[in-house]
């Protein structure tokens, strides 16, 4: 056990799995860097250094730099997965899925079903997501709702270094295509992470705290925001349960429904665009299956229906924040069903 950053936790997960299983390979643009250059090899280790050192340890055959052509290499990862390897492909920014969605949505995700159960596609696609980096509209999207919508994919949004390591090892060992999304603002976050390999199962939510008054469901980086909001609210006597679903597909609906059955009040925090996102998904689940328990409207803390703006002032305004979560929780906590209902 030692303090590790989110970046280090991911790097370690990859390294340990590559040591364990020679079929695990990595590919992506500059996952090493330096190929065809005049300087050093393994020059970058990913655009933000997450895969640094892996080519040095595992060689050019297992850590493959690619041309800038996402459709071909993401498709290649799918094809390799269907034929004996266990590729981890890096898409860099999840926004680039626009260049390779077909290979994810129509190929990898559907093989098994279309082929009547005869394919296995143990593929992991890693990508970074999220606003807060002044990276503007084409490099700041969350997009996990899009992947969650597609049957055949599993979707992981880790909320901390500990979660990231365990969930990534699970993803690599999983036999289905997994989209593994890393919030780009979190790479330097640190916490204690075991040195040895471990897995965290998919579809099992983590309760980062338990309380009586309001349930908060939050995804990825938003879990931290929710915890901070819960801390503040606690001081005012509002106690919250905070649910980190860890994976949006599969989604641990049981835990969400149980918690709402207890608190009767729900706030969902989702940094993805608001229409047809995870906040709507969870709200619909609860409005259908825990209706009786609900004592207040289901509040969503989500960005507005706009692209992500560049300027810091606007980006801050765009993002869900601790303050907005706090306000939403207060409003549902204070809510009382009207007499006539």
């Amino acid at each position, binding site marked *: 056990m030692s303090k590790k950053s989110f970046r280090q936790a991911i790097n370690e997960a990859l390294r340990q799995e590559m040591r364990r299983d020679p079929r695990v390979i990595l590919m992506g643009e500059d996952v090493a860097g330096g190929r065809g250059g005049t300087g050093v090899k393994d020059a970058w280790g990913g655009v933000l250094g997450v895969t640094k050192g892996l080519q040095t340890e595992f060689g050019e055959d297992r850590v493959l730099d690619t041309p800038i052509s996402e459709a071909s290499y993401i498709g290649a990862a799918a094809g390799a997965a269907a034929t004996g390897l266990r590729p981890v492909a890096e898409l860099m920014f999840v926004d680039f899925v626009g260049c390779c969605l*077909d290979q994810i949505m129509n190929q990898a995700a559907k093989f098994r079903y279309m082929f009547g159960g005869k394919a296995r596609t143990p593929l992991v696609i890693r990508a970074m997501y999220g606003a807060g980096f002044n990276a503007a509209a084409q490099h700041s999207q969350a997009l996990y709702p899009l992947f969650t919508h597609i049957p055949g994919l599993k979707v992981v949004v880790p909320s901390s270094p500990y979660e990231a390591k365990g969930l990534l090892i699970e993803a690599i060992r999983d036999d289905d295509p997994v989209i593994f999304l890393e919030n780009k603002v979190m790479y330097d976050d640190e916490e204690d992470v075991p040195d040895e390999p471990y897995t965290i199962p998919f579809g099992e939510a983590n309760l980062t705290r338990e309380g009586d008054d309001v349930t908060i469901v939050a995804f990825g980086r938003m879990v931290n925001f929710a915890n901070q909001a819960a801390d503040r609210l606690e001081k005012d006597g509002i106690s919250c349960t905070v649910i980190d679903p860890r994976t949006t597909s599969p989604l641990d609906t049981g835990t969400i429904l149980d918690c709402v059955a207890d608190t009767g009040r729900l706030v969902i925090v989702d940094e993805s665009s608001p229409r047809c996102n995870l906040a709507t998904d969870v709200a619909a689940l609860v409005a259908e299956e825990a209706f009786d328990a609900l004592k207040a409207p289901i509040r969503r803390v989500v960005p507005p229906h706009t692209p992500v703006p560049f300027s810091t002032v606007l980006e801050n305004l765009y993002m869900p924040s601790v303050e907005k979560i706090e306000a939403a929780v207060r409003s549902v906590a204070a809510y009382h069903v009207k007499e006539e209902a």
Partner: protein
Amino acid sequence: MQISRDILTRSYRSMRTIRDFEERLHVEFATGEIPGFVHLYCGEEASGVGVCAHLTDTDTIASTHRGHGHCIAKGVAVEGMMAEIYGRQTGVCHGKGGSMHIADLSLGMLGANGIVGGGPPLICGAALSHKLLKDNNVAIAFYGDGASNEGSTLESLNLATVWQLPAVFVVEDNGYGEATGASYACAGTQKDRAAGFGMPYFECDGTDFFAVYKTAGEAIAHARSGKGPAMLHVHLSRWYGHFEGDAMSYRADGEVAKQRAEHDCLVNFRKYVSEVSLLETSVLDEIDADVKSEIDAAVIAAKAAPLPEDADLMRDVYVSY
């Protein structure tokens, strides 16, 4: 060119099987009993068979929407295919895929594909598996002239050279993508594209089994030897509409009739092997009869086969979920 009797008879059988399978589908489709889209490979048999004659079950191929021929050439069982096309539980994909998604990974058949340009990236991946697992196999992407303009195809040509993959890109150029001529839709030449992505270019008459066999042999030998990918450009003609139901008004009267009359790969195969005394006509006749009853049986079995059950709907979305 050396070619064993075994390969000759197997190849002839494959071509005949494809022909009969497709001609029969054409008839059956008209009855309205076959659901969905069906794209026939008739007329193009020598291409898939001439290429696959160089492959074993551990080599990989990826196919297209026009996939029946490639499946049969790679050894997928006709009965299971027919049942699949009829949407039966006994189909190779248990009725979940249909004509456009027939696959059998145990035979190195990575699937027909409803997406034009879907296969070439996958074949880069299969070739990577072969390369890293050092199994001496090759991976073959079949795709059409139309598909040769998809970004995914073009990117794959580049990636395959960059990674020096044991892959062959087989452009089955039948002159049309749907109702649009290749002379309109494909700028430049396939040959220059091969050069543009740094790989050797081979080309042949796709209605002549022996031409395909020879040229594909060279392209595949190149890839198998570890020298990187190759492109094989096969010139062809399709005999039916783009899909069943297409009246082909975009083709001149007589265009197909001429192909059928002069470039029938089966007729020409028979003529050649008897001229040079490679195979006896009786052997070929026997194959023909055999295949005929095989196809008959497949149709009868498919029609009689059970439909999928309700529980099949939810099965096999994931390995685990």
